[in-house]
């Protein structure tokens, strides 16, 4: 026969009325429990619900003093009211006491609640960000066993490249470490409807087993089954929840419906759950059409695999590397210099640098919480010393030290809980703002930042810890002094030295932590300012940009692609307000290709001797559109955008200076790739001014390190399927957006123009990381400064207040106002200077790992350090001066008479 859960019974024992009354209720519950168990009804959850209901009701009645039963109505056979309900009763009493104390000193309590609220709010918000971004991870069963296999090539400077299809088949056949392998690659898909214009979506092209490998089932229909990939497979598509709702209005009859993807007819077979966007941020899934006739070294995919039980990542990596070695030996022309990389799926798409930054942020915000707790501790210390007499009297009347500590601690717990509620509200606002700032940023689909049960539990825990930490030392110290000492001290009004040292060390800590945080935020702010104000070498004003993708299936020949782009440009130019139109593979300031190149007539001993520079494929109006000066030679002529012109190139000034310093670069011929590359030699016809290349990765992080050595190649030489268009306009660029879309649509109804925005917006989006993290660290820094200043002021002010009598004696003995001022200032500035010294060291140490977050700023930038020290010093000095000046206004007679 089962018995009721002991924990539930323990809860009931502590909360039900004492004596026989409570026991008989327990007995009734047990009787019903046994009856249910005999009848084979579920009992555990039922009992817990009852226990919580009864406990809650009786606890509430006690708090509201609606017991309705006083001691006299206890059963004659009872042992009194207190056994069994003692602990809970005292706890309620302590809470009530804490609440009364708080209401007695409203200003001090409000300060404490605000301080805790700020600290807890920032901490909870940051935790929500870190938890939602890094810790929670995708909702995939055993996601830590899901791996991605990529390749890298140090000679080609290629880091995470896909695996050729035939290599993938070899891996599939030879590996034993994974339950199965699947492949995927990304593409943008133009989804067209009968009456609706086409839209571009992020599509994932998969082997048939990939969706099932995630373990996530569709909410409608099904995923793919084995055999539904390959060149002869039916054209089937699985939609994301977002596309199903947004594009098809959540049509319940969507299954089996035909849709046009890139001009081809597909049947919808399934819809995935809301929030699912595997592998990154994808809207729909189709299967690949690769077959055995794919060339070795040709079509590539990222490989996905689930580790077998008991197989480690390391063992799997070694096996895959061994297979790769064999392939390298068999196919040296295509596989030379390629190595394999096996990494967890989450790490593949969530760069570790972002994870590290988020963890750094969490550390920073704990610093703010520490300062907040220290402030509250000082506030409570101050209040505790004011109640020294009360504590002494209660001790004399028999209250144990434990009881007094508990009562004092209960105040800080109540303060903490109130501050925690405020903090939760602040965190919620912070999350809303944060999500709004990220709304246009592409990120992994599983990143979901919100205040959920975990965040709330974290908030509660942090609040409790902060309150206990803040309250324990003041409570212990206040209760631990001898009665006689306090009473004597009270009457003489001597300096409260016994609490002064602890209080001082708290302030020093506060100043040190806030100094460090301010240094970190100062460095980041400088970087953001530099990024926003620097001369990038091109003009981003009055430029509209957009993207489009010419599918090989629709435009199989290079000439077809060239023709539509020429016509697109011609029609755009004809629009009113358009001054210049260009196409480019990369827009300036937003990254570039990396190309190896060789100069005609030069020999290179090994493959790694070929220099690597940035590259971009452009059309002739590129330099005009972005107002990039051509400093030597000329830009491309518009006629050279056609397909049969002589291959030409333009290089940047820094490239010319570095590689052609000893001769005239104009007329030199260079070739992309190495000696075996199929590309033709190109004649250099112009030298362009350097531009800031930037990065299209990681929100711009690390983009300050990217060099400005660049080759510009005409579209005629190296055509691109995906292209960006940039249009210089006379007026506001966004006004032209509808016309630009309409022009392209008029040329091809299946071809959407997407990501249409001003160049300034595009640049801001590309560098979102600096803006976002810069803002966050600035908020931490300002919060820390505010809290530390308030803390310093509070401690000095309180100390001055306690030493009024001493000031009075000094003045009566001949001390002047300046002497008093100096006395107080010396004490305060000592703490300030010590704190800043420690803070500078701490800041320097913590800024080192921040390198990527700092745009063109050294972690030890002396100007920032000096500025922060000056700011903090000035603020701290003012915080010390105000109470110091008050001390000089003490009336010696009044002070001496006071008690």
């Amino acid at each position, binding site marked *: 026969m089962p*018995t*009721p859960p002991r924990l539930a019974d323990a809860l009931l024992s502590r909360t039900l*009325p004492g004596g*026989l*009354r409570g*026991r*008989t*209720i*327990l*007995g*009734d*519950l*047990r*009787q*019903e429990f*046994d009856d249910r168990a005999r009848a084979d009804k579920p009992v555990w959850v039922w009992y817990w619900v*009852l226990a919580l*209901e*009864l406990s*809650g*009701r*009786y606890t509430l*009645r006690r708090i509201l003093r609606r*017991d*309705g*039963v006083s001691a006299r*109505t206890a*059963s004659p*056979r009872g042992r009194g009211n207190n056994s069994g309900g003692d602990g809970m009763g005292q706890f309620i009493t302590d809470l009530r006491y804490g609440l009364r104390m708080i209401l007695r000193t409203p200003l001090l309590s409000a300060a404490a609640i605000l301080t805790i609220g700020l600290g807890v709010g920032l901490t909870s918000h940051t935790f929500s960000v870190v938890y939602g971004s890094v810790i929670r991870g995708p909702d995939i069963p055993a996601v830590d066993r899901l791996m991605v296999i990529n390749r890298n090539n140090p000679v080609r400077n290629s880091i995470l490249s896909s695996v050729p299809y035939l290599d993938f088949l070899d891996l599939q056949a030879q590996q034993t470490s994974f339950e199965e392998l699947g492949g995927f690659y990304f593409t943008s898909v133009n989804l067209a409807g009968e009456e609706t214009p086409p839209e571009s979506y992020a599509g994932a092209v998969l082997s048939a087993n990939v969706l099932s490998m995630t373990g996530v089932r569709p909410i409608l229909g099904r995923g793919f089954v084995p055999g539904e990939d390959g060149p002869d497979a039916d054209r089937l598509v699985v939609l994301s929840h977002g596309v199903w709702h947004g594009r098809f209005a959540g049509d319940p009859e969507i299954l089996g419906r035909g849709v046009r993807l890139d001009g081809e007819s597909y049947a919808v077979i399934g819809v995935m759950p809301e929030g699912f966007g595997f592998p990154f941020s994808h809207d729909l899934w189709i299967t690949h059409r690769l077959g055995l006739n794919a060339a070795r070294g040709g079509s590539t995919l990222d490989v996905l695999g689930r580790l077998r039980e008991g197989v480690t990542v390391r063992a799997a990596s070694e096996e895959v590397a061994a297979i790769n070695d064999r392939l390298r030996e068999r196919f040296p022309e295509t596989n030379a210099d390629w190595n394999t990389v096996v990494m967890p799926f989450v790490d593949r798409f969530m760069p570790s640098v972002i994870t590290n930054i988020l963890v750094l942020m969490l550390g920073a915000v704990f610093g703010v919480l520490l300062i907040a707790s220290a402030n509250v501790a000082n506030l409570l210390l101050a209040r505790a010393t004011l109640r020294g007499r009360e504590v002494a009297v209660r001790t004399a009347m028999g209250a144990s030290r434990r009881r007094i500590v508990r009562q004092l601690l209960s105040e800080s717990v109540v303060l903490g809980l109130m501050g925690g509620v405020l903090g939760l509200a602040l965190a919620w606002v912070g999350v809303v703002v944060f999500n709004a700032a990220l709304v246009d940023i592409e990120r992994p689909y599983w990143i979901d930042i919100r205040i959920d049960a975990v965040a709330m539990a974290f908030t509660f825990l942090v609040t409790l810890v902060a309150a206990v930490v803040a309250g324990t030392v003041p409570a212990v110290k206040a209760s631990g002094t001898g009665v006689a000492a306090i009473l004597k001290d009270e009457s003489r009004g001597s300096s409260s030295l016994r609490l002064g040292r602890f209080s001082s060390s708290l302030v020093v800590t506060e100043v040190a932590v806030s100094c460090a945080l301010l240094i970190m935020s100062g460095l980041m702010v400088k970087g953001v300012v530099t990024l926003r104000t620097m001369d990038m070498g091109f003009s981003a004003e009055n430029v509209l940009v957009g993207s489009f993708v010419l599918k090989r299936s629709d435009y199989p020949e290079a000439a077809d692609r060239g023709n539509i782009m020429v016509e697109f440009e011609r029609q755009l130019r004809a629009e009113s307000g358009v001054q210049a139109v260009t196409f480019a593979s990369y827009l300036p300031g937003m990254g570039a290709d990396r190309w190896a190149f060789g100069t005609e007539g030069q020999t290179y001993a090994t493959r790694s001797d070929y220099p690597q520079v940035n590259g971009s494929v452009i059309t002739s109006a590129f330099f005009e559109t972005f107002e990039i000066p051509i400093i030597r030679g000329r830009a491309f002529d518009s006629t050279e955008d056609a397909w049969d012109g002589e291959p030409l190139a333009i290089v940047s000034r820094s490239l010319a200076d570095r590689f052609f310093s000893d001769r005239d670069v104009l007329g030199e011929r260079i070739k992309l790739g190495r000696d075996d590359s199929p590309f033709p030699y190109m004649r250099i016809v112009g030298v362009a001014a350097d531009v800031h290349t930037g990065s299209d990765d990681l929100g711009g992080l690390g983009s300050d390190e990217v060099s400005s050595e660049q080759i510009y190649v005409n579209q005629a030489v190296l055509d691109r399927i995906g292209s960006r268009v940039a249009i210089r306009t006379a007026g506001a660029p966004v006004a032209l957006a509808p016309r630009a879309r309409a022009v392209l649509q008029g040329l091809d109804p299946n071809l959407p123009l997407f990501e249409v925005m001003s160049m300034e917006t595009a640049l801001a989006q590309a560098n979102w990381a600096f803006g976002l993290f810069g803002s966050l660290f600035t908020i931490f820094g300002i919060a820390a400064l505010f809290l530390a200043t308030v803390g310093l002021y509070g401690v000095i002010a309180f100390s001055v207040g306690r030493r009024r009598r001493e000031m009075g004696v000094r003045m009566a003995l001949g001390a002047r106002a300046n002497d008093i001022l100096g006395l107080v200032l010396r004490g305060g500035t000592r703490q300030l200077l010590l704190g800043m010294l420690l803070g500078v060291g701490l800041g320097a140490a913590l800024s080192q790992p921040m390198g990527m977050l700092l745009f063109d700023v050294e972690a030890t930038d002396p100007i920032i350090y000096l500025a922060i020290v000056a700011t903090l010093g000035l603020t701290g000095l003012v915080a010390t001066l105000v109470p110091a000046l008050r001390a000089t206004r003490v009336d010696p007679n009044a002070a001496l008479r006071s008690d």
Partner: protein
Amino acid sequence: MAPKSFLGEFEQMVLLSILQKGDQAYGVEIRRELAESAGRTVTRGAFYTTLDRLESKDLLTWTTKSVKGWRGGHPQRHFTVTRKGIEQLRRSRDAFERLSRGLDDVLAET
């Protein structure tokens, strides 16, 4: 002299259930009587606090009865309605009857 207050509906039901159960007027049995006869299921919290309230108004008393090998060894409470409680019930019944006079047609089941 007129009573200062009348019993609430649930309070009346609890007292009547105690009277109905007589010797078997223990906590669990009273709740079952309420559920079966009056179709009234109520949370245990409301039930026990109503018993406490009736006790504080001196409308019922209780005594304990020890048990062995049952209910985890916890005793039972046997409830009895006091004279005051019976008087209150009588007043409530009389008031109900006076107010219902002549309304048989209206109150009859259709």
